[in-house]
């Protein structure tokens, strides 16, 4: 297995946010969703850098949307998870689930 078969922490968080937001995933909404669900503040520049990397690996696709005056006339860029991206998310989830299994030290909140 190559390293590319699995997603990194940040990549996985962003991919899951994309899945949760479905058709409404663009920079601001992704950052808000992550902040709302896991109270984790990620810079927009970092989100875009990760999304561009994922797009190069064909796990994410993007489309230019509408522009609004409150954005200074700049268009939004909407992102969606591709079929390949969905497969990678599942692979990563299975790998993490295997690693979590049989760890009595962590069960019940004991470190």
């Amino acid at each position, binding site marked *: 297995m190559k390293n590319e078969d699995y997603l990194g922490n940040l990549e996985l968080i962003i991919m899951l946010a994309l899945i949760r937001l479905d058709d409404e995933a663009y920079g601001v909404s992704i950052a808000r969703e992550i902040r709302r669900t896991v109270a984790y503040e990620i810079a927009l*520049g970092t989100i875009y850098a990760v999304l561009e990397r994922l797009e190069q690996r064909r796990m994410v696709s993007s489309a230019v949307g509408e522009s609004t005056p409150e954005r200074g006339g*700049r*268009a939004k860029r909407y992102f969606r998870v591709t079929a390949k991206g969905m497969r990678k998310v599942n692979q990563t989830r299975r790998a993490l689930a295997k690693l979590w299994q049989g760890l009595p030290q962590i069960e019940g909140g004991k470190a």
Partner: protein
Amino acid sequence: MTRHAPPIIATWVLSCFVGENEALIGDLIEEYRNGRSRLWYWKEVLIAVFRATVTELRAHWVLSLRLIVLLGAIQWCFGHWFVPLLWYLFGVLLRTPYWLPVACAFSFLLGWTVARLHRPHQAAVALLNSAMVFLAAAPGFCRLAEDALSNDRFRAYLYFDVVFTVLLCFSALLGGLWRSSNGIERKPKTPPTHAPLTPV
């Protein structure tokens, strides 16, 4: 400036580095208008600039390496040959107050030229050039700091050197960004609203 207008300089700097990524600029403006502070805006801009530069330089590492060697050589020649020659020829003119604008102008010109010669990666190269200027000044600065710690007489020189180094780096960056911003293709800021989704 109204509360709703994002910091102009920060937006200009960001557009120099991520000119093609209008969505990122739009996202930052949207968040700022939703109540984020100027400090937050600047922080986000600096993170985006750093990310964009690292990505650009890593993607073109051969060019980056060549540039580091070239800039190092230019700065070495400037420090070891050009400056002593100027001192020899125009010693009086090069007393500190006069020397500062000349050095800044040279630094600006160097930044502009380097950016001009690397058109596709102008902003990233401008930042690299500025970092190289800082690194070239660092050894002298460290020596002076050491002297200032042992003798108060050198403290004034140290303060001057700090200002001098910052101005040199700023001039080099400004020269590169100036060239970079002139090279950005001007696009209409308000495309038709409710446009259908088009694949990028």
